[in-house]
């Protein structure tokens, strides 16, 4: 309103006075880039190649630019209306979007303009990019244009097209992504051979691709293809493609050499005894690390693509003849059914393929350790390694397996059993202790020894809060410390967190905020949850703990048992890839030498029954064999004497 009034033709002086008196709305509409209300929100992006409604969209984009320049509010409103209509139009198309999604790939606009500009500058040749077909053209320049168009060259600067002549005769060019390839291979093994004079000693008239592959290129892995899409994928994966004049095929060379982390120690699963190798972010390396341990021809690695846009890969590994084919089929089916633009790492894959996404408990087991992965494979489980995170997933999994660590099999059985029971105790404390404390102090005071009770009551006198608030305060601050401790850079974070907890506990007691016994309860709970080997399970337990605190506060032990049984019912109804979550205890299956109590390694003769592995037998009568051999030796000696 005021703005409009200001626009009136008023003499200069009056205008200045008015300006100083009247309130003027600050002109702060263009504060910066604002994405939230973009025109194409909620609309599937379309690729320029097969866009029918492209012009429409473009028009709106142009209009937007105009409105930006003018900064006029009225026009902007118009613009928004228009985009709304666009939106409605697009909504009609959403029905067949799903079918479309698989066919095209998202590419920014204005490619044609770029190409158009460049064309006029260039040779003036009438080479046209192969827009309609996925098949390579026999004309080199056409191929070049297509490739350039596909990789958005020259806007995209890390894809390199290197033009040269093979043997100083035939025109050719190479495409590769800078940084993804090994420069040494390129400089020393490919270009010198291709560009040397004596390449074509015995060449015929026809396409030299086969000749080149057989005689010239000294690269270990060479393939040829006649498809653009495949070529583009492989180039993006780090291979380099060689296009030759007059050939409808190109040569893909394995020249991968990108930067990657070295194989280091596993960070989340450290052990005292056992292998100190951990996975890296590189899929190939990870698969190799597993293969290095299982040297068996039956170890199958199937590569499946995941992620529609980021084109990530994941490997499904299993031991043919041992892993159950139903599980393998199911895993492959579920992975193939993932329809998502961006999938990276095992964490995302896990969420896409798990059976009961609403349960707290993890239904796959992840590990950072190749040796543990190998042991999963040997048990008959199927392992999924996704690109981008140093973890492998194994399915199917049961509750009890989440408690095992790789150290269990490396130390002798009394030790491993002891450690395992400590871990179970940790789980028990982490789940029930705070809830029990609340229930005991609120409902079942008779269970507390009298002297302790009097002491707690005396300490509680000074605390103004009800028990439940006290417990929640401590638990939540503990969770904060733990979460903060992870975010603190460097490994000191953990230590800092614990120190913080101690200081907080001490200070809270001194300040009369909580009773001292509670600090002990909370810290034992924390220690217990640290002892749980599986991180996902540990988080689940951390959440469950709060449920038990509430249950205990409302109905004492009755509430706790109801909550426990509820969780037990849910856990019993869960399945992980066809295997009941609580097997082999419920339902009971055959001999299980390694559930909670771990038998000595030589007596673990069979694979777990619930996996339904094809080959149940894992090992023979180890100890017995050499004992009986010794006996025979003795007998032999006695016979001689």
């Amino acid at each position, binding site marked *: 309103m005021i703005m409009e009034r200001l626009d009136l033709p008023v003499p200069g002086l009056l205008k200045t006075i008015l300006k100083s008196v009247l309130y003027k709305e600050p002109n702060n509409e263009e504060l910066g880039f604002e994405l939230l209300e973009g025109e194409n929100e909620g609309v599937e992006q379309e690729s320029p190649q097969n866009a029918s409604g492209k012009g429409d969209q473009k028009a709106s984009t142009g209009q937007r630019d105009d409105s930006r320049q003018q900064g006029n509010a009225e026009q902007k409103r118009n613009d928004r209306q228009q985009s709304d209509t666009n939106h409605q139009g697009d909504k009609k198309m959403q029905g067949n979007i799903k079918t479309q999604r698989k066919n095209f790939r998202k590419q920014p606009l204005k490619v044609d303009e770029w190409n158009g500009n460049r064309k006029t500058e260039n040779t003036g040749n009438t080479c046209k990019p192969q827009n309609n077909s996925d098949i390579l053209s026999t004309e080199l320049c056409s191929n070049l244009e297509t490739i350039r168009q596909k990789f958005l060259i020259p806007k995209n600067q890390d894809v390199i097209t290197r033009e040269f002549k093979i043997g100083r005769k035939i025109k050719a060019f190479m495409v590769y992504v800078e940084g993804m390839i090994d420069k040494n291979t390129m400089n020393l093994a490919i270009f010198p051979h291709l560009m040397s004079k004596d390449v074509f000693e015995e060449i015929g008239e026809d396409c030299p691709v086969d000749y080149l592959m057989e005689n010239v290129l000294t690269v270990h892995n060479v393939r040829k293809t006649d498809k653009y899409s495949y070529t583009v994928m492989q180039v993006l994966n780090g291979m380099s493609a060689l296009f030759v004049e007059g050939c409808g095929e190109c040569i893909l060379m394995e020249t991968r050499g990108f930067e990657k982390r070295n194989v280091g120690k596993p960070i989340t699963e450290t052990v005292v005894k056992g292998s100190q190798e951990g996975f890296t972010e590189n899929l190939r390396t990870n698969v190799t690390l597993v293969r290095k341990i299982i040297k068996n021809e039956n170890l199958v690695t199937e590569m499946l693509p995941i992620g529609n846009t980021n084109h990530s890969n994941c490997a499904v590994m299993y031991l043919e003849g041992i892993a159950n084919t139903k599980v393998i089929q199911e895993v492959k089916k579920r992975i193939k059914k993932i329809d998502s633009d961006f999938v990276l790492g095992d964490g995302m894959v896990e969420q896409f393929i798990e059976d009961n996404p609403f349960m707290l408990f993890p239904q796959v087991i992840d590990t950072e350790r190749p040796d543990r992965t190998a042991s999963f494979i040997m048990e008959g489980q199927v392992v999924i390694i996704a690109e981008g995170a140093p973890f492998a997933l194994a399915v199917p999994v049961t509750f009890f397996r989440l408690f095992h660590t790789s150290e269990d099999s490396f130390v002798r059985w009394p030790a491993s059993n002891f450690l395992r029971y400590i871990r179970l105790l940790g789980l028990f404390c982490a789940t029930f202790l705070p809830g029990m404390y609340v229930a005991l102090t609120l409902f079942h005071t008779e269970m507390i020894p009298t002297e302790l009770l009097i002491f707690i009551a005396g300490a509680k006198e000074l605390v103004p809060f009800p028990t439940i608030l006290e417990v929640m305060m401590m638990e939540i601050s503990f969770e904060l410390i733990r979460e903060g401790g992870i975010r603190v850079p460097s490994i000191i974070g953990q230590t800092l967190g614990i120190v913080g907890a101690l200081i907080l506990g001490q200070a809270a007691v001194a300040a009369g905020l909580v009773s001292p016994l509670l600090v002990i309860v909370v810290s034992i709970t924390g220690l217990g949850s640290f002892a749980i080997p599986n991180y996902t399970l540990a988080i689940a337990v951390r959440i469950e703990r709060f449920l038990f605190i509430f249950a205990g506060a409302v109905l004492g032990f009755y509430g706790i048992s109801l909550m426990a049984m509820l969780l037990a019912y849910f856990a019993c109804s869960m399945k992980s890839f066809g295997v*009941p979550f609580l097997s082999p205890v419920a339902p009971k299956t055959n001999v299980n030498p390694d559930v909670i109590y771990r038998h000595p390694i030589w007596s673990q003769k069979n694979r777990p029954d619930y996996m339904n592995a094809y080959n149940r037998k894992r090992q023979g009568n180890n100890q017995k064999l050499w004992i009986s051999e010794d006996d025979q030796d003795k007998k032999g000696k006695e016979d001689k004497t």
Partner: protein
Amino acid sequence: MIKEGKIGVQEAICLVVISTSNRVFFTAPTVVQQFVGTAGWYMSLVSDITAIVFFTFIYLLLKRFPEKDIIEIFHITFGRSIGVFFSYIYATSFLAASGILLREFYEALKTFIFPYTPISILNGTMVILVTVSVFLGLETIARAAKLVAYFLLFGYLILLILSAQNFRLPYLFPILGYGVGKTLMEGLTRSSAYSEVIVLTVFAGALQGAKHLKKAGYISLVLSGLLVSAGILCMSLIFPYNVFQEQTNPLYTLATLIKYGTFFQRLDPAFLFLWIIITIISSSVVFYCAVTSYCKTFRLQDKRPVIIPMAVLLFTITMIPRDLPSVITEYIELLRTYPIFLFYILPLIALITAKLRKKKGGNINA
């Protein structure tokens, strides 16, 4: 038909043992003691043997109709109309049994732990849990029963062993109680204390064969007979008969008596978990049987729409009894003595009818 899944023999045994031996945790031992005095511990064995004999008939009936459950067999042997009538009574009595079981439990809970909490809160939370369990299905209940069976057995035995410090052998005498005749008579009539074995027949289809049913039935009857008898024996060793007859919940009182030093005493709330979990499992399975037998009676394809109305009924039935004495003297007596006709005699009649009418399994529903 309703998907029941498959359960193994071990899970079935756990289910039956838990739901039959829950008696020992409530007023039943006291009532037994009031009838037979010091002879209670072997009277329960007499009942057990009677139940085993009756179970043999049930087994013979189910063997005749392999892969069929009792409701279907009723339909086959008695024809649709009478079959529906009997099956309906079956479903109703299961519902009543689970309701009274819960009520008995709340009475114990209110006496010893929560004197001021309204029974509707205790009941509401429990019924919600039981309903959830029935939604999740038989497989889940059976697995949960198997999972907790270890803890329950361990806890129960620990409870009995720890109470050994208070045992006094003379309390078992006079050894014959109120006389052999009375003991035998009571033993026979109270054999329906083990009538929960009948739940096996309701989900006989899930057990995969009469052979498994036989194994599960006999083993669980023997096991629960031993457990109940051991419990009553321990209680008789601690309470002389005329004090025993006074106890509202003898086993809980037994737990309060445990005392080893200044720390290890007053531990009864820790044993409370036994009471609660046993009640949860047994009421879940009995309520499940009520729901499925109702569905099977009227050939409903899906049990889920029935569950919530039945849960409301369960809640209501639990709230019906006016006071503790009426729970014990009227409702429980009703449930402990009369089911013998329903659960034992009825299958017997069905067996005889099947023999007379020469009906056999396999050819119906083909």
